[in-house]
């Protein structure tokens, strides 16, 4: 029962931030500065997620060569710069990770 209550509250605090700006769209005009700031949201947020997910292993920063997550991300980054192809980037990243895990 307590867990259903948790789900209810979680659903509320997840939905509200998603909906609020949508609800206000057209009603309020954001200041131009803020609008330009929002242009950088995808790059800023997604890069921060990538950094933490790839460089932090077992709760600590890991710059060693045994951090295969980071090496796979680096390989994916190079592929993405050259070919700009999402599917190819994912495939190379995964192959690189699997190869490191199995071979090294």
């Amino acid at each position: 029962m307590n867990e259903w209550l948790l789900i209810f509250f979680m659903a509320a605090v997840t939905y509200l931030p998603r909906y609020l700006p949508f609800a206000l769209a057209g009603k309020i005009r954001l200041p131009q500065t803020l609008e330009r700031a929002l242009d950088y949201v995808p790059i800023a947020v997604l890069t921060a997620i990538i950094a933490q997910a790839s460089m932090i292993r077992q709760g600590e920063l890991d710059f060693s060569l045994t951090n295969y997550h980071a090496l796979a991300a680096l390989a994916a980054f190079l592929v993405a710069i050259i070919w700009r192809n999402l599917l190819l980037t994912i495939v190379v990243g995964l192959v690189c990770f699997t190869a490191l895990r199995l071979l090294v």
Partner: protein
Amino acid sequence: MRSPLFMMGRCFPETYLMNYRTRQFWLGALETLPLILAAFPFGIVFGALANSNGLTFAITAGMSSMVFAGASQFIAITLLANGTALPVIVLTVFIINLRQMLYSANLMHHVAHWPRFVRAVLAFWLTDETFATVSDRINRHPEEPGLRWFYLGSALFMYSFWLFSTILGYTLGSQIPGLSDWGLDVAMIVALVGIVTPALKLRADWACAAVAFISSLLTFDWPQQSGLLFSSILAICVGMLLSRSGKTNE
């Protein structure tokens, strides 16, 4: 590189006959597919973790279908297993979801003319994956109509795959021990790399990404992922400042 739509028309000639909205719907689904496949292992790990943490099947499926937010769900079951009080879990989830508020605000301008009902429904399905795909489309074809159908296709696909993967993970969890140690999260990392990298064009974009990267590593041990939010805002400010100084008159 042929567009997915072209390839789809090649493989299924009848798609040429679909009306415009249907085509946008399937295109949205198709362009989200790489990200969905990358998120799939995450759902499996979530389901497996929920199972080993002693959550019932109904609670697990209920959480995935009603909350529908990967990071929040992970944190919630971790905190739940640690015996954290309900208000603390809810507050943590709220803070994590402020990220989605930035996404939503970013799309504001493009959804302003949608009916209120459409906005209310589509907002529920706003995830990292759908946002990345939708904002990519806005980048490439800013004026193209039918965005809401594209969004719907992306969202419904993401939603059904997320439900399916968590249920699958829950079922497999009892049979495959240690499933969560397989390093399945790497798929998500490389998928995000594939989304962000092509968006880096100007000097300001690169600076923004660099600041986000470094700052999020310096602040990773801040409580409740507040470092993530702080770094994002810092990086946004840097990007903005550089883009302003880069332009001669505005």
